[in-house]
């Protein structure tokens, strides 16, 4: 399998036929289920949603494959998601808008990228809990925010993390991406960003002239 960075680059290049697809490039999979090889043969994932699902209906999380996190993992996921996206004056916390279900569905999915993320996420949970026990003699989910931050500050930026913490730092990046993906695709997330599209209009006027003036673009 192509490594993820390469994949992202290629997909960004490929997504251009659809300007609207670019932004989701990070989670696009490399083309095909099989790596570059001789015969390319797609094997339908019997437990995925298949190449022709009903696109009109709204799906509950777990509609196509069972969610797999246990209660303890869900508690952990909620604590970490809320550390990354807490409640503030603009919007609720990640766990309040279903991000735990989103992540559970993600890491329970039958597809290659999600399976890879499953390993990353579950290993990351274990590492964080080990670190919490080691430093504060409590599971991570029960630590105070300051204690959680004391651990996460060391892994929140892979380019600054020490060599021995690269694995956990990669996990944290993945988990933050997933939390943001789950949160900002909800109504609450869109409202937080003041996204006001996705409504039918009779005409499109472009940006206000005053704004263009302020930006020096009129």
């Amino acid at each position, binding site marked *: 399998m192509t490594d993820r960075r390469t994949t992202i680059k290629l997909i*960004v290049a490929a997504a*251009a036929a659809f300007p*609207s697809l670019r932004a989701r490039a990070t989670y696009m999979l490399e*083309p095909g289920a099989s790596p570059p090889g001789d015969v390319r043969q797609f094997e339908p994932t019997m437990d*995925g949603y298949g190449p022709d699902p009903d*696109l009109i209906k709204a799906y509950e999380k777990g509609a196509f494959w069972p969610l797999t996190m246990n209660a303890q993992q869900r508690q952990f996921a909620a604590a970490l998601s809320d550390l990354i*996206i807490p409640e503030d004056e603009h919007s609720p916390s990640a766990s309040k808008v279903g991000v735990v279900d989103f992540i559970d569905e993600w890491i329970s999915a039958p597809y290659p990228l999600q399976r890879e993320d499953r390993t990353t996420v579950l290993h990351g949970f274990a590492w964080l809990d080990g670190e919490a026990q080691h430093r504060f003699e409590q599971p991570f989910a029960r630590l105070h925010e300051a204690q959680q931050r004391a651990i996460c500050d060391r892994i929140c930026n892979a380019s600054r993390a020490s060599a021995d913490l690269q694995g956990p730092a990669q996990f944290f990046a993945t988990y*933050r991406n997933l939390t943001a993906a789950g949160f*900002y695709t909800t109504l609450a997330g869109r409202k937080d*960003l003041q996204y006001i599209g996705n409504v039918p209009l009779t005409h499109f006027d472009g940006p206000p002239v005053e704004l263009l003036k302020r930006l020096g673009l009129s």
Partner: protein
Amino acid sequence: MPFVTASTQRGPYDVIIVGSGAGSGQAAYTLCMEGVRVLMLEAGRQYTPARESAMFQTPDMAPLGEAGTPDKNKGFYDATVNGGWDVPGEPYVSIPDKWGAHFTWWRARMLGGRTNHWGRISLRNGPYDFKPRSRDGLGFDWPITYDDVAPYYDKVELLIGVYGGDISRENTPAGPGDTLLPPPKPLVSDHLLMKRAPRLGIPVLPGRRAVLTRAQDHRTIPGRLHPGNPRAQKILADAMRKRSPCLWATPCGQGCAVAANYQSTTVHLPPALATGNLDVITDAMVYEVTLGKDGRANGVRFVDATTGRHEHVTARVVVLGASAFETARILLNSKSGQFPNGLANSSGLVGRYVLDTVGSSVSGQIPLLESLPPLNEDAADGLQVYVPWWLYPEQLAHKLPFPRGYHIEYGGGKGMPSVGTFSGLEWLTGGSYGRKFKEDARRYYGSFVYFDGRGAMVPNDNCYIEIDPKVKDKFGIPVLRFHWQWGDYEQRQAVHMQETFGQVIEAMGGRVQSPVITDPVKAIAPGGYMIHEVGGTIMGAEARSSVTNRWSQTWDVPNLFVADGGVFPYNADKNPTLTIMALSWRMSDHILGRMRRREI
């Protein structure tokens, strides 16, 4: 009952058309409007955009937040069904070599094919693009000129509805001034590009896409397109009235239930069906064109995917529009005593000179666009503006290390947040989380810009397809084996794209997201990624050096035609779909003339 089966078909038919996408849809439209009885065969299933297009659905209603998967490569809501980089049970063979020799093939097994999800970018080829060899000595000239095709560009633009500006530049022609709809208003990020790119000598023009920015003029256009044919005029006027102008929301790639953009299923096929002259068989996987004793095509064989039965249907004329490479596959699999190497292949060139488009992308982040007030920037879903190739004089003077140009597809704005919008922000945020992360998300949302280069490819001998000697698909049909190698010209062009995009982002006061790639091998996207498959049944002036003639008619079989991108002997930087339609209309007019003269 226009949708029929092998047992309920209502032959005899005048013309069989294989495929239902841009080229086939156009051929069916043109022929049926003139009273020709057509049988269309589509390998995939029936598809009804009005009922099946996800439009205002949000990512949280889809599994995995709508992310792409091996089942739905470009996202859950993408209009492509039963298709993508891999089609279950329909493998193809690609020779693995070093990076860059691999080819990936996007197919869509559905009525309307890839037109249901395409980007709708509709650029005309210019005069140089039809005579590239005459200009720089490389590749092949088309046997036709821009002036031969221009009237058909006019017609297609009027029929399908294309927005854009009536501004011509060198080798970037516009029509007579009344064929295009008004372009959408530029976004804030577009205004920034329009202000800064010209400082580098880079022009910015209104984009051109097949989207109705206002209702089509159903009073005058039908008369212009079908003079002297009142019935066709009425059918077209009715069809145009049923299309809604753009709703300024929802991605075109998910299909358009109100027919505000072009897809074959909403624009070409409804009027063709309304004539009563078109019958369609879906789930019909064509694998062979059959030949009569007189050396003429007399029909096609297909596997009915629903029953597994092999069927044979007949007509006076056969038109292949199955997609460039699928058309070549059908010809290569149609072997007979007269054509032991495949039908219409006396030149040995069926499957040779296959082409894609050069692609390379750079994204950037622009501080001026941070923390803007709320704006609805869904607009027409992209390409309000674009950059045509601007260095023709430099190229002619050999001042560039590559002979052919590219255009730039540009985008930005506050689109609907998706699963990837806030991924990998560490390079900007230093790894923030907590309240700071939410503040950062608000700050950076809408401040990203995307540059996608789309460049010309010079045909080369290393890019060809053939029938694999061993592998067959689930129908038992031998599959294609791909050979692919970008040339040095394409790779150097991709590096030029990277460096240029980096300079433009800097001129916009921004930062490049990932470093500009200067390694020519890595700067270019792999073959097939742009989904601009053309060539393989190239048209030319002589039978020994081409498969089809100036009318898209095969040299060897006078009643066999190619309606898809297979006839392209060269792939300019302009996206091929508009040209495919224009050539198909021109071909269809030629078929009509020959049928009226009883030549075929």
